[in-house]
């Protein structure tokens, strides 16, 4: 298929997945902010949960250019509605819809209508609307829209190459986001060794598990108290948890193998390597390296893989005789 079309499909699903993950992340933040354990003993005040989304998305600098301090209100504006923030839910939905519009011939009309309606609805959302609906309810709505779009895609689209690129975008974005969310614990959640296993720790881990819809899975799998080792195992190494790193890499590796045909492309090899580390990894190794270091290493790997996918499929360069063109979109016809 056209490389540009593949690129748009890949980013369409990345943007929707990102909107969903931003909603998940903000929801867990909101829930944690309601916990009565904000300040511990003197000298052990831990970070405001509302700073977490900035840490996770790396948008702190952009935030402080616009707002003097972190408040729930400002954060929700910035992360949900701000069109100048490319990670905001508003921007993600807008971008996904623009991607879809650029390739509407490559997706089904049901998919386009679903996304277009989502965009039309999102355009009418303002802060009073979010507040009156209830903040968690709003995030549930965003998640539901993402589920719905995935369902429409799954239920209507031809299993062609375009479908593969849509799935690739979903899992690349999801792997990145899950790794970032698990890493949150490193930044803020462990105030002191004494608290490990305490009530605060329990609420924090359970909020984190809920944010990736894995709380019930945890209960089912372990039937035990929540411990960091087990959470890491669940969200990193187990491949039967749909948002775990291993599950994402299973899909990514398989998709890239299908897309590569017979030619072994670098992207396929890199995905295989990342996959093998998860497939053959052990929880103890992760904690020997350090959870944060392990996750940073994984995020580097996913970043490099994304660049390679660009080179191999989405923005290929051929030798082009003749003139060069600058990339711009314009409307020139009168």
């Amino acid at each position, binding site marked *: 298929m056209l490389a540009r079309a593949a690129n748009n499909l890949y980013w369409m699903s990345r943007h929707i997945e990102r909107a969903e993950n931003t909603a998940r992340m903000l929801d867990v933040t909101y829930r944690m902010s309601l916990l009565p354990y904000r300040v511990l003993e003197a000298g052990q005040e831990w970070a405001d949960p509302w700073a977490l989304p900035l840490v996770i998305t790396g948008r702190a600098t952009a935030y402080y250019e616009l707002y003097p301090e972190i408040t729930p209100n400002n954060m929700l504006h910035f992360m949900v509605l701000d069109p100048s923030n490319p990670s905001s839910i508003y921007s993600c939905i807008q971008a996904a819809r623009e991607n879809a519009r650029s390739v509407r011939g490559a997706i089904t009309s049901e998919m386009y209508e679903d996304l277009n309606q989502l965009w039309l609805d999102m355009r009418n959302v303002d802060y009073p609307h979010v507040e009156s609906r209830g903040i968690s309810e709003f995030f549930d709505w965003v998640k539901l829209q993402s589920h719905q779009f995935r369902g429409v895609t799954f239920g209507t689209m031809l299993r062609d190459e375009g479908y593969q690129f849509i799935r690739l975008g979903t899992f690349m974005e999801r792997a990145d986001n899950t790794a970032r969310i698990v890493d949150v614990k490193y930044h803020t959640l462990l105030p002191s060794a004494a608290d490990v296993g305490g009530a605060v720790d329990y609420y924090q881990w359970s909020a984190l598990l809920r944010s990736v819809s894995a709380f019930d899975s945890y209960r089912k799998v372990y039937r035990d108290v929540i411990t960091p080792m087990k959470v890491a195992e669940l969200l990193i190494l187990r491949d039967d948890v749909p948002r775990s790193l291993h599950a994402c890499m299973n899909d990514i590796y398989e998709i890239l193998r299908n897309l590569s045909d017979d030619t072994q492309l670098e992207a396929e090899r890199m995905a295989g390597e990342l996959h093998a580390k998860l497939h053959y990894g052990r929880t103890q190794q992760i904690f020997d390296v350090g959870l944060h270091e392990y996750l940073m290493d994984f995020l580097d790997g996913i970043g490099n893989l994304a660049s390679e996918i660009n080179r191999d499929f989405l923005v290929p360069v051929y030798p082009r005789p003749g003139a060069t063109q600058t990339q711009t979109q314009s409307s*020139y*016809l009168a």
Partner: protein
Amino acid sequence: MNMPTNGSLTAQRWFNEMYDESGAPREHYAAFANWLGSKPVEFMLQKQKEADTLYARQGITFAVYGDDTGVERSIPFDIIPRIMRPGAWKALSDGCCQRVRALNAFLKDIYHGQEIIKAGIIPEQQVLGNILFRPEMRGVHVPADVYVHVAGIDIVKVERDTFYVLEDNLRTPSGVSYMLENRKMMMRLFPDLFSRIPIAPVDHYADVLLDNLRAVAPAGVSNPTVAVLTPGSYNSAYFEHAFLAQQMGVELVEGLDLFVADNYVYMRTTHGPQRVDVIYRRVDDDFLDPLAFREDSVVGVPGLFGAYRAGRVTLANAIGSGVADDKSTYVYVPDMIRFYLGEEPILQNVPTYQLGKPDDLKYVLAHLPELVVKEVQGSGGYGMLVGPASTRAEIDAYRERILASPAAFIAQPTLALSTCPTYVQSGIAPRHVDLRPYVLSGRAVSLVPGGLTRVALREGSLVVNSSQGGGTKDTWVLEA
């Protein structure tokens, strides 16, 4: 110049498509009128609202240039169909095909032997001096000698069975997606109507288009790859480009997706370069190839014209077809039909004054308040004067523009366009309509039974263009 002696051409009592003079529904509208009469007003208003919502959700939009309020808008759709009798359609359809055959022969002729000029039927200057004439196309062979693969013929009706051709659109005529979407919408809103009334289907349009495009592939290509070339998602007709590509099951490409190597055209795909044989292009000549035409084009493909000349790729429509749809060439179309086909024109032209002619100019300047004046190379309803609907000041300003360059204008009597009942704020009221059927050529010259009916939504307005606030209706050709 022949003046219209036929009083009905400009009569103030407009022909109503649905009702006769006594207010009774015409025979071919009877079944629909009966059905409509059985429906409560609220039901119809509800359906009208539903249609508006569905169009917005489906993103069936067009962009209006010079309007800063938003990039996209839904085109207003009216739920009362325009219905045609089989007999009227037959004459119209034959007339459109005849016209396109003649226009195609004309294009082949002027880029080769120029017999029509030698025969003294069209002045040399009219052809060679036209800025839409492409000297680069002289002697270039195009597959099957087809230049006009898709034509949109704008037709108005002034009374029962009296049709006039308003203009021919031979470059990149748009609107066919609305013909198809309007039908889909009507079937969705009122499925019962389609079981009661024998309405000829139109939805095979994309199949016929693809079949014709494949038929004009370069020689020796047995399984041609077809693509639709769009200027991009910011173009006013982008929805249609994407729609047609999807309906035909072919790639929708932008200039940057294509490149030329060794005079062959390739798409950049996820599996390397892939040959393209036929391009249904929705990009104007000027912007197709920055090496051959406008250097500043960012939506074209460098080297495309070279590949085209070498016969390695087919472009539909052919480069240089615009010279035949220019409003100053329009007046010669009946003569072309006689010259190339040896037939009498089935459809009439609207009497047209060419302001480059001193006598015509003098008459027009003295009668501006009664006439419609258009730029010869204009389109989309931009830059025209509708005398009866204009103020004194507007007319005077337009007069200055004419005097600055008379040959750039033509004038026509203000036609008494037929009307069709239409939902407006005050209820159902007659509004003026025209019709654009789409003629396809390649394997054969044909058209699907239907077209795009455009309706001027403002009371009294005769301008139906969507860029000027026009809406659309489904067009039903009844099966014989």
